[in-house]
């Protein structure tokens, strides 16, 4: 029990830097495609790690199932909206950033 708790805590702490780097990427990256990349990938990994940690600490299988359902839904939502925004940006002929 204790080792599960500690392992869960480890994964939650591991997840936080992903969120922070997602936000830093959103603020610092130069164009829309790179920002999309930072936002929809880093954040989802962070959420996945947090959910994995919480699942390790939870005491019933039902809770684990609900947690992973939530993660799956967020994954679907993020990837779909990332695809839609990027596709639309390509259609609008927004130039991807390249090293000057």
């Amino acid at each position, binding site marked *: 029990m204790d080792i599960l708790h500690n392992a869960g805590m480890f994964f*939650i702490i591991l997840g936080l830097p992903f969120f922070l780097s997602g*936000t830093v990427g959103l603020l610092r990256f130069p164009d829309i495609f790179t920002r999309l990349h930072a936002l929809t990938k880093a954040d989802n990994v962070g959420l996945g790690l947090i959910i994995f940690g*919480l699942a390790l600490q939870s005491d019933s299988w039902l809770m684990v199932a*609900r947690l992973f359902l*939530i993660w799956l839904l967020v994954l679907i*939502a993020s990837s779909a*909206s990332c695809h839609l925004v990027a596709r639309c940006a390509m259609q*609008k002929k927004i130039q991807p950033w390249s090293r000057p």
Partner: protein
Amino acid sequence: MSRIYIFFALILLAAIAAGMVRILRGPTAADRMMVAQLFGTCGVAILLLLAKGLDNMVLLDIALVFSLLAALATMTFVRRTWQGNDGEGADGYPS
């Protein structure tokens, strides 16, 4: 022990607050809209951590609704605001 979860939630809230600068700055409309996406993901994480920290499992339902509806705003934005709006410049400003 539950305080640590609240501390994590606090960090994520700070991440959201920092991300909001992009709404004000973001050159194209999509940049602004992406912050709503960030709020969705971060909000779910905050709710899950609070659910553990405050020991209130109802918050899981709220997180479920959050995650279910996260894509809706972005989809509407792409279909109704950004795409096929002929009065718009290449910079994506809804002029």
